[in-house]
């Protein structure tokens, strides 16, 4: 039974610098990197050493505490460098890419007729498993689990983010195969959230929900909450729609083809360059934009609300399909706190007249104030379309009160759902970080 999800609360930030809807091939990056830090809570155990040759789809490290979960090379080449940080923590595994990829052949398989266990094994050994994210906790799913249901969001609402619907509508066959494969992994259903009039609405073997409303309606967690909320002890898997297509390709071709279509967005990108680029997971920023001055420009892997800050020569996040460049806002503003001034910045506050301005805005990374005690109430609720008290949950996370966090719905949220809380809150509170720490506490205490 499909269900329309109509989200009322939230905020669509209308920003300048959207990517033009045309796909071009990006030049092949010379260096690709897999960053273990993209996989939250995974402790990597290296299989290969520096200098080793790899094929695309060959295992380079696995999860120390969940050994079947493998992480593979996205391209073929030579492991050029294993970058380590403090306490020898692995930051990046860099691969010097060959000119043409050589693939590990896993063999074709029809997931609908194959044994479910074989489907699962195939996904695990091919390195597609890390695409599967478990809720609660927003971490890579455990290989032992069977989820209550699987959710895929193909509706994009995040500001300047690559439109998944547009990206995946060109990969329908692979997407369908991926959905078929996923449907074998659960006794429950596969749910797909799509926008109105989406081509993806015709997908089989899944329950399609039409989603509408402002950001964060496109967040998969919001859709889970409205369709089949997570209770204590339950597990739901969520995937990005393009990742489903990669899994589908694995079953169609027998190869791990980590193709990623990345939207290059933001006001610091030249107008002509703001397009969608066909590239491969782990591609270096330099293959898309060159000569970026990082003191003036912030490079963000992902969208402006949830993305990671990158150096000018780093790789994109494993999961991200957006590269955003916006100006750094390290400038002073004379009397910037005066009410009804600086209306160019989108705001839900009544102390700004930005609603009168209309049109799109150019934004920078200025904090527009300083961190303060929590004083204002009622504003966080405006941007969290869940039956959850956000401020109370944040406070419970800050004090580490596990029972309270549980009661207030910690299992239903992910940091990205609180991205708008980050944005709008008066006290400049780091809500996403607080929720992440809260979830981490739950992992260690409850598991």
């Amino acid at each position, binding site marked *: 039974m499909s269900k329309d999800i109509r989200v009322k609360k939230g905020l669509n*930030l209308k920003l300048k610098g959207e990517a033009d809807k045309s796909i071009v091939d990006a030049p092949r990056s010379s260096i690709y990197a897999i960053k273990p830090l993209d996989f939250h809570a995974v402790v990597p155990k290296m299989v290969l050493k520096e200098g080793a040759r790899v094929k695309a789809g060959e295992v380079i490290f696995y999860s120390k505490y969940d050994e079947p979960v493998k992480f593979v090379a996205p391209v073929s080449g030579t492991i050029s460098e294993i970058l380590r940080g403090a306490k020898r923590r692995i930051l990046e595994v860099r691969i010097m890419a060959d000119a043409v990829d050589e693939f590990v052949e896993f063999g074709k398989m029809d997931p609908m007729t194959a044994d479910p266990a074989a489907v699962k094994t195939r996904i695990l050994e091919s390195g597609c498993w890390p695409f599967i994210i478990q809720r609660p906790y927003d971490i890579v799913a455990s290989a032992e689990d069977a989820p209550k249901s699987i959710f895929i969001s193909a509706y994009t609402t995040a500001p300047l983010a690559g439109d998944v619907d547009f990206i995946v509508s060109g990969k329908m066959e692979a997407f369908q195969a991926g959905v078929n494969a996923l449907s074998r992994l659960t006794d429950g259903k596969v749910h797909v959230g799509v926008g109105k009039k989406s081509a993806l609405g015709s997908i089989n073997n899944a329950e399609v929900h039409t989603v509408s409303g402002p950001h964060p309606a496109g967040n998969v967690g919001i859709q889970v909450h409205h369709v089949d909320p997570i*209770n*204590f002890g339950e597990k739901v898997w969520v995937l990005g729609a393009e990742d489903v297509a990669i899994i589908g390709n694995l079953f169609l071709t027998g190869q791990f083809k980590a193709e990623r279509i990345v939207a290059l967005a933001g006001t610091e990108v030249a107008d002509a360059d703001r397009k969608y680029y066909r590239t491969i997971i782990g591609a270096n920023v330099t293959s898309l934009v060159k000569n970026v001055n990082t003191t003036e420009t*912030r490079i963000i892997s992902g969208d*402006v*609300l*949830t993305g990671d800050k990158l150096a000018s020569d780093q790789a994109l996040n494993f999961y991200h399909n957006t590269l955003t460049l*916006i100006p*750094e*806002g*390290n400038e*002073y503003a*004379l*009397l*910037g*706190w*005066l*009410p009804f001034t600086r*209306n160019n*910045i989108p*705001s839900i*506050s*009544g*102390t*700004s007249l930005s609603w009168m301005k209309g049109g799109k805005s150019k934004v*920078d*990374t*200025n*904090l*527009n*104030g*300083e*961190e*303060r*005690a*929590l*004083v*204002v*109430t*009622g*504003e966080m609720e405006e941007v969290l379309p869940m*039956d*959850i*008290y956000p401020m*109370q949950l944040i406070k419970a996370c800050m004090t580490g009160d596990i029972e309270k966090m549980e*009661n*207030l*719905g910690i299992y239903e949220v992910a940091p990205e759902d609180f*991205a708008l809380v*980050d*944005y*709008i*809150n*008066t*006290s*400049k509170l*780091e*809500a*996403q*970080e607080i929720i992440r720490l809260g979830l981490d506490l739950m992992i260690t205490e409850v598991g």
Partner: protein
Amino acid sequence: MKWVRNRLDQLRKPFEPGEKYEKFAPAINAFDTFLFTPNHTTKKGAHIRDVVDLKRTMITVVLALVPALLFGMWNNGAQYLYQERGLASVFDVPFWDAFLEGAILVLPLIVVSYVVGLTIEFIFAIYRGHEVNEGYLVTGLLIPMIFPVDIPLWMLALSVAFAVLIGKEAFGGTGMNILNPALTARAFAFFAYPLYMSGNAIWVHNGSTDAVSGETILGSLASNRFDGVVSGGASDAVAFASSSVTEVSSTLSSLNFSDMFMGFIPGSVSETSALCIAIGALILIATKVGSWRIIIGGLAGGAAMGLIFNYFGGLGGEYVSELVNSGQITLEQIKNDAGAVAALELGGWDATLLELGKNQLFNFPFWQHLVVGGFAFGIVFMATDPVSAAQTLKGKWIYGILAGFFGIMIRVFNPAYPEGIMLAILLLNVFAPTIDHYVIQGNVNKRKKRLKKAKTQLQAA
């Protein structure tokens, strides 16, 4: 601008991390960030941020207070000068005379409040190593606005110190306090120095001297309970109500509803003008800084309580009229001759009815209750303090309604505390966490029920 910035950066140097006065950085930051919104960029979380910050929010509240403050200055000057000069009404005082006189009276209060309060805030910010929160910008202005104009400055200073130290910092500073700091200051002064905070003589400058009367409407309603019946010659409750205002006492004889609404009456520094408070309320609601739920709820609660009192007052009035019309007793006797009343040998409910009929506060029309005294000011500027109010949307309704309800109840039942709204809001401040607890518990129970259902389904399957 660049030049100013460079000068500031130079001035700041000794306060930078690792330098001599590093510890005192919050103090200089407080001034610096007032001139310039800092160049801090986002480090984690969302990369872009809304323009709103606490400074902007608090300044908006200060803006909302300005009409009431300016009017308060004029009114305090006018209330004093017209009596001192023997004029017929406040409007006969030249505008600038009144405003300047009022400003001279009020400004010292504001200065003392800010200096004492901010000094303590700065000390605590440096001691705790956090930035100075802007909350006191509002509190520091609210406090003088709710004190009588003649309060000795040292008493004000002591009240401010008490409110900031015990009311706020003892609980952990801004955002952690249970009670509204401004009301804490007033309550402290109210109980510590009752002679300067209540009574009939203090509400106009030099009000205790013979030439000037410093009475408020509520005070006279409470003390001259019976005048309305006599002078109005009322035969029913409606007449009581309409007469009670116009004939309260000799010095207030020219008062009417429009005076009360506009605020041309004695009272605390800035609480009198319902019109200016309404302008402030509109600013708060339009900017979403103040909760409209609390404001509307408070007015509704106050009106409901007023209606209940009016109903019983009306019953009493009818009974008194009956007694008088049947010739058993005259109004004069009811007022002055306790023996004659006792001779009626009224028992039980009848005696109560007589008392109700005599009580002017009971018969004061409910909508007028909302504009006199500190009720409107309290509901708009005190009850909406987001830290001490209820924090959930449903909770805000309950909190607002109860604050208004109890405010009028305390005012009427205990004439010694005509400013019932102060105590009502403080009471509700204490209960706000409880209200929130039950609202949130509803959400928690929903979640638990869902879990139970999921479990039983699992077992069934």
